[in-house]
Each structure stands twice: as C-alpha cells, then as structure tokens.
C-alpha cells in the first residue's frame, strides 16, 4: 500500500480549525468494487488500488442545503406526485430513522434523498421496461433534511420486488435507495434499505456484495409497530451511520449547526 498523499501536512489543527478529519473507510466492512456474482461489477470496477488521499478542505466540506431548497411535500411520497384526492396503490409505510456518525453523534441538517420502485416493482424511469404498470399517483422519489438531532422521516408505499438479469435471472428484494451527504465529501454515501423478514434479501447478489453478515444486517429496516400511525401506515426504522471524525479532535472543536 502506498503512503497517503499528503495534502495538508502536519499542524493543521491550528491553521484550519474548520477541517474535520474523517476516520479511514473500513474496506473489510464495505463491499469491494469487484464482486463477480454481481455481473455488472466486473467491467465497472477499477483494477488498480485506490490511492489514499489525506483529507483536505475539499474532502472535509460538502455542499450546504437548506429548507429553501426543498418543497413542503418532498418527504411524502404518498402525496408528492398524486393527483388531488388520490394516492398511490400499495402498503402505506413510514420509513424513519436517525443519521449518526461513527462516534454516535447525530448528523443534523443533512440532505437525505430516496428513490424506489412502486408497489408493483416498476420504476418511473424512461429506461425501465418491466411489464408491471406505472402508478399514475406515484413518482418514487423524496427528499428531506435531518433535524437538529439527526432524525429523518418519509411517508411512502412499500416497493415491490422485481426481476433483473444478472448471470441468470434474479429478483431484487423490496428496497429503497438512500443518498446522504453529511458534512464532508468523504462522508458521501449511497445505500439501499431492505425490509425485515424478506426472504429475497439473503439471495440477492447486490446485498451479498457486502462481505459480512453483521454489515448486511445493517441494511435491513426493522418493523416498528410503536411508531406506526393508527389505521394509516406501518413504520420501519432505518438508522444510517456516516463516517466519523476522531473523537478527541471532534470534541475539542466548537459544534456548529452542521
């Protein structure tokens, strides 16, 4: 392994107090780029090792989004594409949870975006040709900002499973894609959330790209009846962890608003 490229050298604590060092990514925990059972990864994975890059200002900062960037219904997929008085077909769910960092600190005011297939397993996308129908009342995307304590919440329908071509035909388990920013480019993350009890999860080559069972379990949203809305929607909880900073350095820094 080559030495990290030193962009910032030593002693940046005093010189750049806004810089946050992120913990190195644990590549034994994350999926490798090349996972041959997931066919498309074969031609789309770099062959050479990633070059370590010490975090500088460009890696320790990321775009800032505020309430003015979003609309009032952006986190409600039951309404944000539905015709007046109508709503999408499917099992009404709440997907909620907390965004934390590796030091168990909330990640406040950060953008969370999601997208998914409809209840029949069909995406509203020009390139999706699956024979299940488009739902006229369902767009399939939403976005929100976490609150001061890192909580986020979406209303939506539970997506359907759908078939896809891998080496042979597979079925994707029901899943919702999530995209998160955090406070630095180094924290940028896209993942997928699955649902507790779905037998397709263990058979999915994309899930199984993640090497360890403990890590794969972290991708499964848990049924949470206590958070359900009576006579309305059933809740699933999905907590998300972004990379953290070294705890002692973090504590020594005044906490901003995100």
């Amino acid at each position, binding site marked *: 392994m080559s030495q990290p490229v030193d962009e910032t050298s030593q002693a940046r604590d005093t010189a750049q107090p806004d810089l946050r060092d992120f913990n190195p990514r644990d590549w034994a925990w994350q999926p490798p780029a090349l996972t041959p059972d997931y066919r498309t990864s074969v031609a789309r994975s770099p062959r050479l090792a990633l*070059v370590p890059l010490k975090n500088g200002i460009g890696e320790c900062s990321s775009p800032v989004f505020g309430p003015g960037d979003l609309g009032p219904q952006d986190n409600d997929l039951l309404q944000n594409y539905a015709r007046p008085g109508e709503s999408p077909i499917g099992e009404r769910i709440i997907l909620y949870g907390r965004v934390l960092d590796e030091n168990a600190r909330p990640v406040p005011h950060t953008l969370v975006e999601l997208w998914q297939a409809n209840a029949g397993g069909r995406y509203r996308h020009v390139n999706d040709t699956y024979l299940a129908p488009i739902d006229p009342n369902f767009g399939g995307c939403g976005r929100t900002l976490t609150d001061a304590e890192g909580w986020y919440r979406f209303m939506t329908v539970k997506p359907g499973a759908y078939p896809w071509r891998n080496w042979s035909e597979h079925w994707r388990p029901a899943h919702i894609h999530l995209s998160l920013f955090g406070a630095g480019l180094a924290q940028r*993350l896209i993942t997928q959330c699955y649902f507790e009890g779905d037998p397709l999860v263990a058979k999915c080559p994309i899930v199984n790209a993640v090497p360890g069972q403990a890590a794969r379990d972290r991708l499964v949203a848990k049924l949470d009846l206590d958070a359900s809305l009576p006579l309305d929607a059933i809740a699933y909880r999905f907590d998300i962890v972004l990379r953290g900073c070294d705890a002692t350095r973090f504590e020594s820094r005044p906490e901003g608003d995100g």
Partner: protein
Amino acid sequence: MTPMADDFKETPSQTAGPFVHIGLAPGAAGFDIYEAELGHDIAGPHAQGERIRVEGIVFDGDGEPIKDVMIEVWQANAQGHYATRGNNLVEQGFRGWGRVIPDFETGEWAFETVKPGGVARHDDRQQAPHMALWLVARGMNVGLHTRLYFDDEAAANAVDPVLHHLKLQGRDHTLIAARRPVGGIATYRFDIHLQGQDETVFFDV
C-alpha cells in the same frame, strides 16, 4: 483508530443502480416532480472567473460508454474558496456543486461552470486548481472519487503534491483534462476509464 461497536460502523454502501436519476435527477428519468432540482447550476450567475465547459465519457472495462452513470462535481470558486456553511467568501448563488447526467444514447456528458482557483493550504502553498468528481452507477458497489486538473495550469500542476505523487507512478496524466476552444467557450475533455492502460486514478478519500 478507536474500536467501534458494529452498530456504529459506517452503513455499507450499495450500488445506486440504473435508476439513480429518479431520486437525484428526476427530470432525466423522465418526469417533473420538484419545484427545483438540485445540482443544475454549479457556479450560479454571479461567479467571477473564466466560464468553462467540461465534457467526457466514462468508459467501462470493455471500452463501452457507461450511459447510466451519475457524476457529482465539487469545486472551489475562482478565488479558491469552497461554498461551505457560513462562508461569505463565495459569490451569491455559488454552490460549487452539481450533478451531471450523460446522454442515455451515447454516454456523452458535459457541464458548464467557472474554472476553480488553487486551494490554499495551511502553509500558504497552493494545490493546483482542480475539481472533485464522484461517480455512481449500476455495477459500482461504492461511489468512486477522482479529481480533474487542467492542462493549461502546467506551473501549478508541477508543484501540486497529489499530482507529484501520481507522476512517480506514471498516472498523473489520467487526471489532467485537455483544453480546446469549442464554439467560443474553453472546453476541457475529461474521459474517465475504469480499467485498462489509462485507468483513471480513483482515491480512497
């Protein structure tokens, strides 16, 4: 590194899949849902500096264009300042961040912005002007970080610590975009190769 319970290890990454545009660029997916999509305007109307265009194709290991890629751009303004929270050193409307979607038929992508300035280090040395690019697509289990540098910044590039390190490995050229005028605007070509002889450098950020 501090030992951590599994509960507080980073959530595993999963591929963005072929339909990433639904969530992050619904207009490209074929529908209009948000009042304003994010990431359409990187520099904003008031940014100083040279207006430039960047174009390219992302190629897979078979030499085929990756037509469903999504690229995010993150850059400083012409004076080398990032639009971080509370930063009043950037022009009004300058976010320095954007999303780039290729033509689904050809894989060609392009975006317009301003050329970034060199970013200062704590010791007053400069990094050469560059942009951070982050790529996600079907088949990529984890997003890929790379950087774009400019071929008309030879003096700055020569002393940039990242490029210097890569030059020793004979790989610096994969990050340097080539400038040429196209239709009256300075255009930089930046093809990205996931594999092969000119495999682009990707960083463990």
